[in-house]
Each structure stands twice: as structure tokens, then as C-alpha cells.
């Protein structure tokens, strides 16, 4: 098991459910016997601000955070956040990005512009970009609130262990009433890659 520590970042807008995605990941890695660290930010930036969660796993993990050039995978819940955190990706890392756009206040007020063609520009830099309409898939699964689990499904594809491990973790973590929706959301994400 002496593989190097793997680094995954989950980035988005406060309120999008990034914390559930990191919680599910953390649980799955513990299940597989890894040392795990997850770093979250609670409080002020939760309110519609840019949020980031770091998940690290391997034989022994020291720092709880991921720095520029260190992430193997970035899961972005929104395109502008994908652009903001791009420098944290390893040059040969994978960016999984939902294609939704949410204007931040400086764009709404007209003080700044939302950049054009974010994902194509990132691709042009030679980065492997997986673009996905997670909101549509979540809606198809039964609830837009399962967008986070769709994105987890996409990421699970690149993390290399059995789908059942993930589904077990999803079942044991989400509220009982939402299990069916979340299972479906995960499956749709996993199949979409």
C-alpha cells in the first residue's frame, strides 16, 4: 500500500453541498484502510462565497491542506470556481467540472465580467477536463440537491475501487428518505464519466 498520498479538492459555492461530497469520500477511504485527512472551511465563507475542501489519503498523511500544483483531481461544482482553483491542480491532474455558471456579486453588479469559455481555455492548457451537466443528471435522479453525489460518482470512476464500496458509503450517510435518489445520482455520475 506504499503508494504516494493522493490529493482531491472539491471546490464550489457555499451552500452547494461540497461538504457532503468530502464526507462521503473520507468515509470510503477509511473503509479501504487508508490514512485520511479532510479539511473543511465552516463559517463566514459558507454564505455564497467560494468554498474549498481538501481530501487527502494514503499510507500516512501529514498536512490537511493541498497547495498549488499538488491536486490529482479537482472536482468543481461551478465553472468559475474551476478556474479559480486550477493552479492547485498537478499539470497532469484531472479536472471534473459541472458546467453550471453562478455569477458572483461583483459580476451581478457589473464590476467584473464572468470569463468566457473557461473550460475550453483550461483544456487548451493541456489539462484533462471532464465536463458534466451534473444538475441535469441530479434532476433526472429525482432532486437537484443530489448534484454533489452525481459529481462524486464521476470522480469515483477515477479512484479505482469497487462501485459497491461507494454505494455502501452513500447509503449509510445520506438521510434514509433520500437513499434511492442518491443511489441513482451516483450511478448516473459513475456512468457519465
Amino acid at each position: 500500500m506504499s503508494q504516494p498520498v493522493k490529493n482531491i479538492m472539491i471546490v464550489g459555492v457555499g451552500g452547494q453541498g461540497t461538504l457532503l461530497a468530502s464526507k462521503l469520500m473520507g468515509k470510503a477511504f477509511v473503509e479501504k484502510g487508508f490514512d485520511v485527512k479532510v479539511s473543511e472551511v465552516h463559517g463566514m465563507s459558507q454564505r455564497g462565497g467560494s468554498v474549498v475542501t481538501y481530501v487527502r489519503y494514503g499510507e500516512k498523511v501529514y498536512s490537511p491542506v493541498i497547495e498549488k500544483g499538488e491536486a490529482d483531481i479537482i472536482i468543481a461544482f461551478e465553472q468559475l470556481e474551476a478556474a479559480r482553483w486550477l493552479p492547485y491542480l498537478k499539470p497532469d491532474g484531472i479536472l471534473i467540472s459541472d458546467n453550471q455558471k453562478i455569477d458572483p456579486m461583483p459580476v451581478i453588479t457589473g464590476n467584473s465580467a464572468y470569463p468566457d469559455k473557461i473550460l475550453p481555455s483550461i483544456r487548451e492548457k493541456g489539462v484533462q477536463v471532464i465536463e458534466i451537466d451534473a444538475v441535469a443528471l441530479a434532476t433526472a435522479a429525482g432532486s437537484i440537491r443530489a448534484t454533489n453525489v452525481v459529481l462524486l460518482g464521476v470522480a469515483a470512476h477515477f479512484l479505482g475501487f469497487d462501485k459497491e464500496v461507494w454505494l455502501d458509503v452513500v447509503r449509510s450517510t445520506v438521510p434514509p428518505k433520500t437513499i434511492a435518489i442518491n443511489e441513482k445520482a451516483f450511478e448516473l455520475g459513475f456512468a457519465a464519466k
Partner: protein
Amino acid sequence: MKTLMLGNEAVARALYEAGVTVVSSYPGTPSTEITEAATQYDEVYSEWAPNEKVAFEVAFGAATGGARSFCAMKHVGLNVAADPLYTASYIGVNGGMVCAVADDPGMHSSQNEQDSRHHAIASKIPMLEPSDSAECLSYTKLAYQLSEQFDTPFLLRLSTRISHGRSLVDLSPREEHPIKDYKKDVMKNVMMPAMARVRHQVVEKRTKALQEWCETSGINSVEYNDTRVGIICAGSTYQCAREALGERASYFKLGMVNPLPVKSLLDFARHVGQVYVIEELDDIIETHCRKHGIPVIGKLLLPVCGEFSQSVVREALLGEELPHIALDQAIPPRPPVLCVGCPHRGLFTALKKLNLYVSGDIGCYTLGAQAPLSMIDTCVCMGASVSGLHGFNLARGSQQAKNSVAVIGDSTFIHSGITGLIDIAYNKGFSTVIVLDNSITGMTGHQNNPTNGLTIKGDPTVAVNLEALAHAIGINRVVVVDPFDMEATRKAVEAELAFEEPSLVIARRPCALLKTVKHNPPMVVDTEKCTGCKSCLKAGCPSIKVHGEANKGRGTAEIDQNQCVGCEICAKLCSFDAINF
């Protein structure tokens, strides 16, 4: 079986395992989840106190009464609790007591970046600093044992990355600690000059004994790798340094940051080449090392400001930066904003036209400082809006008082706004104070407080009656408004400003995120009527934008149907009746 836990949850678990029975805290990021997590253990009584001073005194009283007790707060909260802290140090404990204080280097959610170790040193209270969740659990338990052994309250220093980081812990069963006997002991518990002079001597001896203890107890650990470089660090900086330098350096990891050892640090320095001190915020360990003749490098290379990470250490010590990619375009920032449907938006939008000096305070409503609302003139610390407004008006006279208000949240008003309001009433001031009563402590993630009639566990209890309270302290003019009724709100505030006597305006409407709040359906824009004038954007709501090429390129408004909760503020700002249900 190992469990993945937040540092804060691990501290709460330790309270359970260490037989703690009394917990009293005031919320504050990043410390809040400790006390929230403690509520799951029925054996542990927990409560939200009105402020940190009260919380500390409740916990200290419980310790005097023989229980193991606890309180938690953020770094600035310890300033509020500093008064009891410094004298509790002289008295010591009966049952063990631990106070957790969570620093916020990098200021993820704080108004300053102070280093709480200064309070430990100045109050002569020992302080432990864990570096992950497992140590949050083991150090907290150890702190109870040491608290009783050395007869002192203990401080537990946390920081954002430790409190809000999840890592693996091993759980153990609870150990009961029956309440100890209480015996009246005036020499120990009554701090008048004659007694305190004696107790101060005791404190100095205690610090020496603790210093001896930390030299040999194993609380500080040494890891020898490459000995050309030696790193002295503690808490989260150990993790950053170990990550950045790996086996290229040897490490002295401090578990106790007050008092600091001398002999073992000297010994470490003798075994390694160049010694670096890697500590976040101030140069406390570095200064200590210099005082004892250890030539170290610290703040010469590493910053005083901001949070540390492996890359800060890597760049400072190795001059290395990892390759990475960035887009060429500018990325607009995404600052936090008031939520969709937030009642504070109604109040600020209502008052916008009045061009007021707004003495601000700390809470969600501080976000009203940002564009496009831009409604706050000052923000200092909890409670300062009320007393600060009184001072501002004293300086500038009664005409100014007709153009200035204080805004303060319900929780903040209870925390330390009441005393400022008493000052205004007692000293014949004429200020207008607005309490933004949203029935919850919002900013820190929804904690009940003395104004909303619910305990920490959600059980019904008495609620402070703000109107009656204001009358009782001598404020005769008290009005209640609904901040979503913007016209009535503006008129009421204008009327109160005109009076040459103090007023309390209570803007009352529950937080939009409360489960008990029923929302309207989303509103829609009539694109025929919309002229693209952008008036609706003045309230700074994240669910409405104006875009497209219609209206000669001005665009049309569009409301996000997934986000909008129908608060109608934008509709009231529209002169063309273009926004409706």
C-alpha cells in the same frame, strides 16, 4: 475501529471519555462544533452562555464545585473571558477544567489574527496544542488529569485547520469522575490582596513544576532524521513542516506551548545543525529559544501574517515552488453574500436612501458592508456598534445623532450590546440603535440564544423580551418593525432619528434558513415591462441578474427560479411593476 472525526468532534468525544459533566460555551468559528457535538452525550450537560466571560465563569464555578468542566470559544472570545481567566489561574481548580480556544490564522472567519498563546503566558495558565484529531482527543483527556494534578485550569489551543480538519481517532469508553467534595477554603478561593499575594507565589512555583514536567513527560516529541536541519514546531505547523521537508530534517514537536521547555530544546539544538522555528503568527517559541541561547531562524524567513501550509515552508526554507497552471483571464472574486431571502437585506435596502452613518457590529449583517449595499461604516468587535455610536455622537453632537444608527444582531446584542445601551440611557444619550432580531445566531451556523426561547438542545425555555428589557433600562422609545416592510421600516427609523432621546428599533423577522420559515414561490420578471434599469440589483440579491441584449443593450432582469424565495425586495425596488409572483 478508527473513526474519521473533526478536531472539534474529537475534543467533544474527549469530554465524554474524561467524565466531564458541565460544558458552557459561546459560539465562534472555528470552535463552535465542539459544544454542538457535546450535546450528543447525555452524560454531559451543555449550554450556550450569553458570552464567553459567562461561559468561562460557569465552567470555573463547576470546577470549584468539584466537577470536570469545559468551555470553548474563538480567539477573540478569550479577550472577553480574560478577566476571570487571569484570576482563575491564582485560584486553581477542584475538579479539572479545560478551556479550548480556537485561533484563526489566515482569518477565514474573523476580524483579527491574534495569537492566543499570549493569554496563556500572561495569565500563567498552561496550554496544550494538538496537531490532529487523535491528539485533540488525547491532549484534552490529558489536560484534565494535569489540571487536577497541578491545580490549574488548562488551555487547549486549536486553530482552523485542526478544528475543521477530519482525521482518524480511536475511541475509548467513558471514565466516570464522581463530583469531588467541596470544602470552604477562603485562602484559596477568595482573591483579596492578602490571599492573592500568597497565591501568586503558588502560581510561580506551579509554572516551574510544569516546566519540569514537560521536559520529561513525553508531551514534546523528537524525531531525528537528517540532522543538518532541526525544526521546532507545534500543532498544525508540525504537519506543514513534516509534509514539506519529510526526512530531510529532524523535528522537535511541542505538545505543550506554555510553559516551554529549556533543557530538552537545548539538547535538540546540540544534536542538529541549523535550527529553524516554524510557528504561525507571533514569534513566541523563537523568542524563548533566543532567551536561552539557542540560535534559531524563524520570522527572518517565515511570515508573521497568515496561515502556514507546506508550500509556505517549502518556499521559505527550500526556495522551491511546484509547477502549476493558471488561466490568463482575470478571475472575479466571489465574496460571501447575504443569503437569498435574508431579512437583513430588507433593513439595509430600506435605509439606503437615508445616507446614514452606520455603526456596525459582528454577524451576518456585517456582509451589508459590501457592494452594492455598502451600508456599514465600522466593525470592531461584538457590542462595539452600540457604545461606539454613543461615542461618535458625543464627538459630533446631536445633529449627527439624527443621521446615525447602530446595527446589531440579537445574539450580539445579548453578548455585549446591552451594556452599551445602558450607557446611552444612563448618560442621557440620544442615539438610535437597531437590533436585527432574526431569532438565531446566524453567522456561526444557527445556534439558539437567549432571545429565541430555545436551549442548545432545542428545548423550550424563557426568552429575553427585548422591548421590556429596553424599557427597564430607561429607553422609552421602542418600536418593532418588519424589515421586509421596507417603507414602514424606513419611516420608523426616520421618526426615531428625529427624537432627541435614545430609541431602540427592533427589526424582527426570522432568518430565511430556519426550517420553521415558510417561503413564497419564486418571483418572475415580465420581460415586456422590464426596462433593464437595474434598480432591482441595488439590494445585492444573488438570485437576480440583468443580462442579454434587449432594451438597447441594457438587458433584462432574470430571477433564478431555483434560488428565489419570493421575499419581494426586488419587486419593491422596481418602478415598472415588472417583478411579480
